[in-house]
C-alpha cells in the first residue's frame, strides 16, 4: 500500500437548527427507571424456563481427568447438564483474531480437557430453580490433576514456566514492534535520557452493578435462537458465535432492553451465550443464566494488566520531550476473548496529548493463569496514557521542572489542530492548555502554596497532580489488521431507522445497546430539531432487537462513539424522512416546490403561508393507509433507514500507520491529596475534571459520564485490584474484598468543560465517556508530589504509599545524552 488518505478534509460544522440539542431535557428513560419498571435481563421470564448454574474450576491450572454429571442429573427438578466434551462436539473453537502463536489457541465455551484459571466454567447445570441448579452443581464430580500455575506475566516466557496452551507452544500470544520517527536522531539531540526500568498498570475492571446474563429460547421449527441478553456488542458476539455454532447469523436474534452498566465488561459474554443456546436446544426449553457477582469477578473481563520495561525518554534540559522507547508487556489472562486487540488499540493515542514525534514501542502479550482480559472503560488507551503521564511527571521531577510547565511546553497546540500524530492518527480539535488552565482554576491553583503550608502544619503531606487523557472514539476497525493482516475488518458503522407511522407517531430504532448513556433522549433531541417537533413527540425504542433490521456489523454501545456513529445515523435517517415528508407535502399541498416548504410544529407547511399545513398525522395516514391516487412515481415510504459510515481508509499495515479513530475528546483532571506520613493513609481532598467532547447534545448527560468515569478512576487508583496469590487464587472475588467507592468515599468535585467542535462529524460531536483514566494519572501524580517518591504503579492503596515513604523501589536513572 502506498497512499493513505488520513482523514476527511476538515469542514465547517453544519448542525441543524438547535432548539433541542444542547438542552438538558428530562431523560426519557427516567420515568420507568425511577419506578422500577425497567426491563433488565434477569427480569425476562418464560414459562417452564430452566436456570443455569456453572460449575467452575477451583484450580488455576489443571488437567480435567474425569467429569461425572450423573448424580446431578438424577436430582429431581434438574433438567440437564452440559460438559466441555459436549460443547467440543457441537461447536468449533471460537475464531481467533491473533496471528500465531495466539492463533493456534483453541477456545471453547466450556473448558475442554484442561482448566486455565480459577473460576473457568467446566460444566453447566440447568434446573427448575436457581437454588436447585446450585445444589445440583455441587453434585457434579470433576477430577483434576493440578499443574503449576503462571501468575506473573514477567515470568510467563521463562523456560521453566508451565505452558497454558500446548497448541500455541508457548505463553507468548502476540508480539509486534511499533516505531515511528527517527529515534536515533531524537536521542542524539537530547540533553538527558531518563531511564525507567519498570512501571506497572494493574488489573481491575468497572464492575457494572448488574452482572452478565441471558434468557435464550430456541425455536425448533425455524432453528432460530432468541437471545435476550445484556451483551453490549451484539455485532461482535454474533460473529464469534455464528461460526462456532455452525449457524448463520440470521439464526441469532439478539434482544436487549435496559442494561445495568457495561463499561466494556459486557462485550465478551459470547461463551456463556453459546452454552445457553446449546442448552436451550438440547433441553427444548427456555434457559436463563444470571451471573453471580463472585462469578463475574472470577471470570469476566478483567482490564489489561500491563508492564512497561526499559523505558528511555529523550529530553532537552528545558523539558522538551523528543521521543521515547519502551517495551510493553501485556497480561492477557488465560484466553484471548477480545485480545490481542489491546496490542493495537493503545496506538490510537500513541503520543498522548504531547508533541512526541519519535516513538518505539515493542508490544508483547502473554497468557497467564488468570481470568481473560477484555475491554474495560478506556480499554488499552488508559494503560498507555497512564504511561505517558507517568513519564511526564517523572521527567519533571528528575529535571526539577514544574509539571504544569512541562505539560504546557509539550502539549499539542490548538492552532496545530487537526494534528497528525507520528502514526497517522488525526486529532480533530482541542485546546489542552486551555483545559489545564480551567482545571487549575477550579482547584484553586493560585492559593495552593498556602494550602500546602497549612496541611504541613497539621502534619500532613500535601500533593497536587494533573492527569491529561484522550478519549479516542469511533474506531476504524481496520486497525485490527496491524494485529493480523489477514483480518477483513475496516471502518465502522451504525444504523438508525426513523419512520412516521399511521397516526403520525415518529418512531426511532437504534442499533445500539445503551447502558445508561441516555440514547433514547439524545436521539430524540436530534430528531426533534430536524423534524421541527417536540422531543415528546419522538418515540425511541428502548434497546436493540435484531428483528428491527436496525443494526450492522459494528452495532453496539462501546468505545465512545454513540454521539458520532449513533447520532449521525439518526441524523441521516431523519434527514431522509424530512425530505420525504416534504415530497409528500408538495403533492398534497398542490404542487408547491419542496424548497418552499418547512417542517414546524409537527407539520409540513408552506413557509410563506404557514396556515397551509399538513400535520404529520395526515402524512402518516396518507402513506400508510390512504394512498390511492398518489402519483405512481412518488418515492415516499416515510420509513427511512440510514447507515452511518465514518470516512476511514484502511491503515497502512506495513508502517502501522493510519487514522485509527475519528474523534479525540480530551480530559484534564487535577487532584489534591493529603497523606498521613505515619501510615500512608491519604484522602483526595479536592478534585477537578475538565472535559472537551466537542458540541454537547445533552450537557447533563455528558457531565454525568465525566463524573462516573472519575469515580471509577478514583476507585481503581486507591482501592480496586484483581489481585491473585501465587497459586492463581483471586483474592478479591466480591465486593467485600474488592472495594468500590461508596458515597462517603467521594471527594469534593468541580467539573468544567470547553467545546471544540469536531470538524469531522455531522453534528460536531465527539464520542465520550471513557476519559476517567485521567483520575488514575492525577492521583499518581499527586502522590508523587506529596511523597517526593517516584510512583511506579497505577494502584496505590495506603500500604503502597507507606512503601513509597519508607522503602521505595528505585526505578529511575537519569544520564547525560
Amino acid at each position, binding site marked *: 500500500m502506498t497512499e493513505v488518505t488520513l482523514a476527511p478534509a476538515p469542514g465547517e460544522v453544519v448542525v441543524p437548527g438547535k432548539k433541542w440539542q444542547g438542552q438538558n431535557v428530562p431523560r426519557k428513560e427516567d420515568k420507568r427507571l425511577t419506578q422500577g419498571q425497567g426491563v433488565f435481563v434477569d427480569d425476562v421470564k418464560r414459562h417452564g424456563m430452566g436456570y443455569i448454574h456453572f460449575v467452575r474450576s477451583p484450580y488455576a491450572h489443571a488437567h480435567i481427568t474425569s467429569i461425572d454429571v450423573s448424580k446431578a442429573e438424577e436430582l429431581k427438578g434438574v433438567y440437564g447438564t452440559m460438559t466441555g466434551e459436549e460443547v467440543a462436539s457441537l461447536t468449533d473453537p471460537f475464531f481467533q483474531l491473533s496471528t500465531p502463536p495466539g492463533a493456534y489457541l483453541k477456545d471453547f465455551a466450556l473448558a475442554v480437557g484442561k482448566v486455565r484459571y480459577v473460576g473457568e466454567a467446566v460444566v453447566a447445570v440447568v434446573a427448575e430453580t436457581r437454588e436447585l441448579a446450585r445444589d445440583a452443581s455441587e453434585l457434579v464430580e470433576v477430577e483434576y490433576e493440578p499443574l503449576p500455575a503462571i501468575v506473573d506475566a514477567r515470568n510467563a516466557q521463562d523456560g521453566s514456566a508451565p505452558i497454558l496452551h500446548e497448541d500455541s507452544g508457548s505463553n507468548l500470544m502476540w508480539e509486534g514492534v511499533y516505531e515511528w520517527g527517527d529515534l536515533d536522531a531524537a536521542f542524539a539531540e537530547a540533553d538527558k535520557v531518563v531511564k525507567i526500568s519498570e512501571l506497572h498498570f494493574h488489573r481491575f475492571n468497572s464492575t457494572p452493578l448488574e452482572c452478565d446474563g441471558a434468557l435464550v429460547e430456541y425455536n425448533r421449527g425455524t432453528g432460530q435462537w432468541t437471545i435476550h441478553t445484556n451483551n453490549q456488542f451484539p455485532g461482535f458476539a454474533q460473529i464469534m458465535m455464528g461460526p462456532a455454532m455452525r449457524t448463520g447469523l440470521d439464526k441469532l436474534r439478539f434482544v436487549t432492553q435496559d442494561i*445495568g452498566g457495561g463499561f466494556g465488561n459486557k462485550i465478551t459474554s459470547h461463551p456463556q451465550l453459546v452454552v445457553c443456546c446449546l442448552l436451550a436446544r438440547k433441553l427444548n426449553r427456555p434457559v436463563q443464566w444470571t451471573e453471580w457477582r463472585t462469578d463475574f469477578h472470577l471470570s469476566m473481563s478483567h482490564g489489561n494488566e500491563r508492564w512497561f520495561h526499559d523505558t528511555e525518554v529523550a529530553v532537552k534540559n528545558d523539558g522538551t520531550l523528543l521521543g521515547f522507547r519502551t517495551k510493553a508487556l501485556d497480561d492477557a489472562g488465560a484466553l484471548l476473548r477480545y485480545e490481542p486487540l489491546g496490542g493495537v488499540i493503545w496506538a490510537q493515542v500513541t503520543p498522548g496529548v504531547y508533541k512526541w514525534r519519535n516513538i518505539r514501542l515493542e508490544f508483547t502479550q502473554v497468557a497467564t493463569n488468570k481470568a481473560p482480559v477484555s475491554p474495560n472503560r478506556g480499554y488499552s488507551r488508559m494503560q498507555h496514557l497512564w504511561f505517558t503521564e507517568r513519564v511526564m511527571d517523572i521527567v519533571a521531577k528528575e529535571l526539577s521542572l514544574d509539571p504544569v510547565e512541562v505539560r504546557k511546553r509539550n502539549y499539542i497546540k490548538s492552532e496545530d489542530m487537526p494534528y497528525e500524530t507520528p502514526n497517522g492518527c488525526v486529532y480533530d480539535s482541542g485546546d489542552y492548555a486551555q483545559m489545564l488552565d480551567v482545571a487549575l482554576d477550579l482547584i484553586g491553583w493560585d492559593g495552593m502554596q498556602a494550602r500546602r503550608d497549612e496541611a504541613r502544619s497539621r502534619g500532613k503531606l500535601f500533593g497536587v497532580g494533573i492527569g491529561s487523557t484522550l478519549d479516542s472514539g469511533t474506531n476504524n476497525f481496520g486497525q485490527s489488521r496491524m494485529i493480523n493482516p489477514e483480518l477483513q475488518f475496516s471502518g465502522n458503522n451504525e444504523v438508525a431507522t426513523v419512520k412516521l407511522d399511521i397516526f403520525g407517531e415518529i418512531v426511532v430504532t437504534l442499533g445500539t445497546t445503551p447502558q445508561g448513556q441516555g440514547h433514547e433522549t439524545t436521539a430524540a433531541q436530534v430528531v426533534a430539531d430536524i423534524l421541527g417537533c417536540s422531543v415528546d413527540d419522538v418515540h425511541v425504542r428502548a434497546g436493540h432487537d435484531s428483528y428491527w433490521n436496525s443494526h450492522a456489523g459494528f452495532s453496539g454501545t462501546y468505545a465512545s462513539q454513540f454521539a458520532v456513529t449513533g447520532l449521525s445515523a439518526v441524523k441521516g435517517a431523519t434527514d431522509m424522512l424530512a425530505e420525504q415528508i416534504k415530497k409528500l407535502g408538495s403533492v398534497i399541498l398542490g404542487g408547491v416546490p419542496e424548497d418552499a416548504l418547512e417542517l414546524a410544529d409537527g407539520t409540513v407547511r408552506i413557509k410563506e403561508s404557514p396556515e397551509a399545513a399538513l400535520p404529520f398525522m395526515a402524512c402518516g395516514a396518507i402513506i400508510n393507509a390512504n394512498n390511492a391516487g398518489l402519483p405512481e412515481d412518488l418515492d415516499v415510504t416515510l420509513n427511512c433507514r440510514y447507515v452511518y459510515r465514518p470516512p476511514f481508509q484502511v491503515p497502512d499495515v506495513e508502517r502501522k500507520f493510519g487514522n485509527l479513530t475519528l474523534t479525540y475528546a480530551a480530559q484534564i483532571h487535577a487532584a489534591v491529596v493529603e497523606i498521613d506520613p505515619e501510615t500512608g493513609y491519604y484522602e483526595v481532598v479536592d478534585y477537578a475534571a475538565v472535559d472537551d467532547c466537542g458540541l454537547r447534545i445533552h450537557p447533563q448527560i455528558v457531565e*454525568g459520564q465525566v463524573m462516573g468515569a472519575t*469515580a471509577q478512576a478514583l476507585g481503581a487508583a486507591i482501592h480496586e485490584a484483581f489481585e491473585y496469590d501465587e497459586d492463581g487464587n483471586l483474592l478479591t472475588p466480591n465486593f467485600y474484598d474488592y472495594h468500590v467507592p461508596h458515597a462517603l468515599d467521594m471527594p469534593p468535585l468541580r467539573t468544567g468543560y470547553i467545546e471544540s467542535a469536531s470538524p469531522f462529524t455531522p453534528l460536531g460531536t465527539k464520542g465520550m465517556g471513557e476519559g476517567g483514566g485521567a483520575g488514575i494519572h492525577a492521583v499518581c501524580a499527586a502522590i508523587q508530589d506529596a511523597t517526593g517518591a517516584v510512583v511506579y504503579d497505577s494502584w496505590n492503596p495506603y500500604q503502597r504509599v507507606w512503601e513509597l515513604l519508607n522503602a521505595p523501589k528505585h526505578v529511575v536513572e537519569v544520564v547525560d545524552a
Partner: protein
Amino acid sequence: MDVTVTVNGVEYERDVEPRKLLIHLVRDDLDLTGSHIGCDTGNCGACSMIVNGQLVKSCMMLAVQANGATVETVEGLAEDGELTALQRSFSEHHALQCGYCTPGMLMSATALLRENSSPSDEEIKKALQGNICRCTGYWNIFEAVKAVGK
C-alpha cells in the same frame, strides 16, 4: 413453608423453600422486578426495601422471616403514576444513568427522609453508604436527595 406478606399494600401468600431469600420471593414469585441484585454478599444495596418501616437489604433476609410483614418496594413509591418528589429529583439531577441501583437508592433515601426530613450532608452520605452505584460517582445522587431534604 407458607408465607404471607403484604407488598405495596397487596397481600400475597406463597409456599416457599425455607432458604429462599426475600429478594428472590419478591422478584421471582411476586414478579416485582424493580428491586435488583448486584452482589452475593449484602454489599451493594440494589435490593433495598422497607420492611415494617425499617430499611433492609432483602438479600440478607429470608422470605420466611418476612412472614406477616409489610414490605415497601420501589414499585410502591409513585401513586397513580405520580412520581414522588424524590423520584422527580433523581431525574432532574441526573442521579441515575443505567438505573440498576436506583430502586435501592430510592428506598434508602426514602427511609432517610422519613426519619429525618432535613438531613445534613454527612447524614445523607451515611444513609447512602450501603448502596453501590457504578455509573454516577454519587455526586448527583447526593444532590438529588439534598434538594428534597430542604
